[in-house]
């Protein structure tokens, strides 16, 4: 089952990327699938409607909850990161006006706290959203990318 749901998410992401004008080869690289499968996704032959409905429900979730779910579907962190980024079109941001520098978010190597400032290492961050759930002041958030 998890594989099916993952396929559903991949299909939605593939369609989104297609609408952005990407070609199948580029899409295949991002969602880490064969080009033939991408072609299936885009033509709507696969996956089934039921699976797509589950994937659409995940798309409607708040990104910090959806991201946790997507990470649970696969062990490939880079894939999960790509899918979350394209599905929700979000970026992890830090709000310097509300952060109290409590260090609760320091559960992840991508974050460092120095002199009341949080630095996000975007390469190390897999958009898992754990930090956003830890933050007591909602200063770490997924924000829609412009």
């Amino acid at each position: 089952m998890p594989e099916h749901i993952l396929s559903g998410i991949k299909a939605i992401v593939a369609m989104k990327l297609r609408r952005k004008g990407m070609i199948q080869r580029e899409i295949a690289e991002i969602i880490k699938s064969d080009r033939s499968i991408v072609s299936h996704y885009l033509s709507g032959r696969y996956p089934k409607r039921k699976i797509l409905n589950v994937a659409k429900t995940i798309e409607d979730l708040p990104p910090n909850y959806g991201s946790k779910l997507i990470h649970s579907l696969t062990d490939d962190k880079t894939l999960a990161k790509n899918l979350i980024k394209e599905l929700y079109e979000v970026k992890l941001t830090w709000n310097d006006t509300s952060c109290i520098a409590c260090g609760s978010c320091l559960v992840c190597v991508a974050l460092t706290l120095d002199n009341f400032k949080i630095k996000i290492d975007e390469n190390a961050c897999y958009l898992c959203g754990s930090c956003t759930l830890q933050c007591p002041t909602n200063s770490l958030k997924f924000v829609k990318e412009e």
Partner: protein
Amino acid sequence: MIEQVKETFENGFRIYRDGKIETRELLWNDEPCVGCGICADICPVEAIAMGPLGAIAKGDIIAPKLDIDEEKCVLCGMCASACPFNAMDLKINGKSIKEDERYPKIKRDIKISQDKCVLCEQCEMVCPQSAIEVERTLAERSKFVIGEVNINKEKCVLCGICADYCPADAIDLKYCYPTPSNPKPITDIEVNSDKCVYCKVCEFVCPHNAIEVICYKCPMMKRIPKAELYKDINGKTVVDKDACVTCGWCAFICPAEAIEVEKPFKGEVIIDVDACNACGACVAICPCGALEFPMPKDKAEKVPRLIINQNLCVLCGACSKACPINAIKVKRTEINFEREPVAIAWKEAFKKLMNQ
């Protein structure tokens, strides 16, 4: 989620979080805590709850002055940073934020100028925390009180009139039980030079002109300048900065202006005297002893009226927290920072202490 562990001691507790990246430890000590509740006011996650302060201060119950919910606490350290009384500390990777230059700190200090101090000991008497000790050594009494008393034993009848008049109780008569072999009840008279001030009263009152008193100092006193006299008074006034709450009582009464106290806040305490029901919780908790129910002048006055001496107050707000009917308000207009907060959220949090 990294687990936070709370450990309770006899005199406080600690909340500990061992993350992969950093360790944090919040310590609270009941002893220096005055129950001001500044920590509870500033806490961004409302994790601090104050105990029944009035009852604790009055000694009705034994309980910690506050408690921190370790589930809510995020160990940000705002409480420790704002605590003016060193009752709280946050250690990040073992280092106290009180020593960290980047963390804000409220300034509070007392300085005693030993040069100006006249060693009067009055500050020691008024200090509500018994934090001041005046150690003074005086020159030998004999340096200033010196003379001689000559009793002419031939003329003296041992009547003891001089001893009755002596204001210094310095004349000793040797009494003994009269016996046939030793029939006199009084055998001798002596002057105790430790007590005698050579005031000449005995000389004046002796009906038999048997006493002659010479004071060596009296005619000379006028010639010894006062300043020189003070040279013989040595010592110093020591303050225990950990115990001192910088109430300023000592500085307020110091006759030599030798004490300088820097208080943590500026502002005033406003008492709603009509609402006050004189329970006494505020008087009991005040670390400065600045509140008082003076004896009513008017007998018709049923409830004693609470007064405050603003000069002796540190504006900590413990009275306001202890008052069961919110009859006391602490209005702070300024915080005396040693290091100001830099982060925006911290600035806002410290502002909360002023808008109450």
